[in-house]
């Protein structure tokens, strides 16, 4: 037994040496011939490539001259992009549009309330990495005779451990839509909720600290402090911060085709002599006077976004559902002011305490049913909510018929269809049935274009 095994081992060991027989030589020769042939083919292919490279208008590049050509964005050159937007809008002629039951947000509008053919603001965006530790961005909105700095901030890249610090002027991270610029919206205008809460969006001069948790589930927490000059606050000329916000986001995928994100945000700010137009109770006829609010304003926003794209490919078909809900509570003092001698508001009398609690939200769905084409529907609802004040004092000076005092539930239905030949151009038709003003049903038609030139930065989820 032993001997047989030994013999077998010996014979296998001996084989390679013994195998230099004719047959093996033949195999070797064949292999060499094959290799030769293969190398000849490869040389031929290389020659062809060389010839192609020499003749073709597009040149290929060797890996040795390495780095991307200097003309590529993101090198040492800033990424510059320009957004052109304009629209035709058909709607009722209503002087001083405001949402019934709401304190008008004095914030800047972008001309969305003008009728006829208008050029929206044009956005110029410049961004780049400053050095390995910081990134900077400037977003300027250009309109006739004005250039408004929408955003101008730096952001850290190197804090690590999930922390990111942003400083300067930025759009607050509260809610979902607030961080998006109008060119990224799915509708031609902002939801009623956004208009009621902030005017158009809530920006801050301040600092934002964000932290992403080291978990498989996306968990993000953020805190902001800012000057608080924007509606619902006012610029109060103080050394300390005027507004604070905190927010938390959670999100994940469900299978390959679904993704979602949910968030909860809280904003706290204060206003001093926040102005709005009111009509007084002057016996000689109503005057337009300033209503003034001084106090604190707190807003809670809950947001949820769900996106569907078959197998994670949004290019052909995709669906997006998005909703935000808010509650705003304000408490402080009401006053009014006027220069008219017969006005009860002459001299700026105080009108006692004012407390309000208001809610509302919107829900929208946008469906890309084939490449290039999308349709969407949005429903807006608001509730003028509860307001507590002393009617005897307030209505002695201000007309109870002022829209702010009305109990009303503004609503709006919006339908839109848009067409994007490429990801850089978009044409949109929108119809809205707007009942945000009591007693007015405004059927609005908007035709809009949005064009992106240059290094169009990637959008967030």
């Amino acid at each position, binding site marked *: 037994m032993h001997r047989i095994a030994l013999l077998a081992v010996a014979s296998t060991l001996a084989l390679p040496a013994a195998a230099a027989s004719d047959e093996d030589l033949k195999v070797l020769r064949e292999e060499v011939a094959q290799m030769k042939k293969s190398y000849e083919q490869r040389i031929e292919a290389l020659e062809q490539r060389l010839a192609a490279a020499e003749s073709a208008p597009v040149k290929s590049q060797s890996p040795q001259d390495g780095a*991307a050509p200097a003309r590529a964005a993101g090198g040492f050159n800033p990424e510059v992009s320009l957004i052109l937007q304009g629209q035709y809008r058909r709607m009722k002629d209503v002087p001083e549009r405001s949402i019934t039951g709401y304190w008008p947000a004095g914030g800047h509008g972008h001309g969305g309330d003008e009728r006829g053919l208008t050029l929206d603001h044009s956005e110029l965006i410049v961004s780049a990495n400053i050095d390995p530790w910081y990134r900077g961005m400037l977003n300027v909105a250009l309109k006739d005779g004005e250039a408004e700095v929408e955003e101008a901030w730096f952001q850290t890249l190197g804090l690590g451990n999930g922390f990111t610090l942003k400083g300067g002027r930025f759009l607050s991270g509260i809610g979902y839509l607030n961080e998006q610029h109008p060119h990224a919206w799915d509708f031609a205008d902002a939801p009623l909720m956004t208009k009621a809460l902030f005017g158009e969006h809530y920006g801050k001069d301040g600092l934002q600290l*964000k932290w992403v948790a080291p978990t498989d589930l*996306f968990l993000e927490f953020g805190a902001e402090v800012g000057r608080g000059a924007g509606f619902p606050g006012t610029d109060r000329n103080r050394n300390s911060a005027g507004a604070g916000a905190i927010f938390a986001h959670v999100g994940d995928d469900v299978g390959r085709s679904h993704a979602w*994100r949910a968030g909860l945000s809280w904003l706290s700010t204060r206003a001093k002599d926040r102005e709005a137009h009111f009509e007084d109770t002057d016996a000689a006829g109503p005057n337009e006077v300033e209503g003034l609010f001084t106090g604190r304003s707190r807003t809670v926003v809950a947001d949820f976004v769900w996106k569907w794209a078959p197998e*994670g490919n949004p290019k052909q078909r995709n669906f997006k559902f998005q909703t935000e809900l808010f509650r705003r509570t304000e408490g402080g003092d009401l006053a009014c002011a006027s220069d008219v001698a017969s006005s009860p508001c002459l001299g700026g009398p105080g009108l006692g305490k004012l407390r309000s609690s208001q809610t509302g939200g919107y829900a929208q769905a946008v469906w890309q049913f084939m490449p290039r084409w999308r349709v969407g529907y949005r429903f807006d609802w608001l509730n003028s909510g509860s307001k507590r004040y002393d009617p005897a004092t307030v209505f002695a000076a201000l007309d109870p018929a002022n829209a702010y005092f009305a109990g009303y539930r503004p609503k709006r239905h919006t339908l839109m269809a848009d067409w994007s030949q490429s990801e850089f151009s978009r044409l949109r038709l929108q119809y809205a049935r707007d009942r945000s003003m009591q007693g007015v049903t405004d059927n609005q038609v908007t035709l809009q274009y949005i064009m992106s030139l240059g290094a169009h930065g990637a959008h967030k*989820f």
Partner: protein
Amino acid sequence: MLRSFVFLAGLAMALPSAAAFNIFACEPEWAALAKALGGDKVSAYSATHALQDPHRIEARPSLIAKARNAQLVVCTGAELEAGWLPPVLRESGNAAVQPGRAGYFEAAPHVMRLEIPARLDRSEGDVHASGNPHIQLDPRNLLAVAGPLAKRLGELDAANAGHYAERHRAFAEKMQQAIARWEQEAAPLRGTQVIAQHKSFSYLFNWLGLVEVGTLEPKPGIEPGSAHLAQLLAQVKARQVRLIVRTPYDSPRPGEWLAGRAGIPLVTLPFTVGGSERAQDLFGLFDDTIARLKERTP
């Protein structure tokens, strides 16, 4: 009780160091390459899968969470991921994987890129200044990327540098042998005229000597239109085009339209790892690609 708690705490603290080196790959081919080089010392997550168009990805929350915990990000570069990777990395708050850091690795700079445009203008469609980014379908490119990637792995995970170097040697040897075999198998395909949906296969055609007569997309990233397809149909007949090829994520409709009218087959190639049943790793990817091409070329 206390002792078991101390033990658990100790285990929890020990876990991160014992855990595998965490890699975030933008595309499945780089996850597969990282896995081939790292073996059980790495865990590689692919941000996209073979049925996804890597140009058009949403910067989803789940990607940010994955990038947050990555120790190395491996992507193609050449602007392929420009539409989604920058916000994912920035939002992750992970300093180690920001572009320019050692934890950020781009494959494209290590290979000879094709189709670098002489003129950069959006009227030419979605062109990439650094050339065609779909580099993975020429296995010689994988060899060219594997070396620097193994080196980077060894630098970041110094304790296992020898392991990566060893696996790289084995991988390179196996790949070189496979390349010789594939080239032989695909030799009959040389000179075959084909039409691709997007410029997804330029490196494959260049390697195997196939000739791309045109693309279904009139310009890169622009959806095929009927006028352009009609033009292609005339070309197919005039130039004896044999095949139309598409990736698993391209819409099959334009290809089916042309294939039906021209009487030539539409072939779906795996494009990357996971793109077909056989393409479960980098070797299977090329085995299947060449088999599918040969099967449909008379």
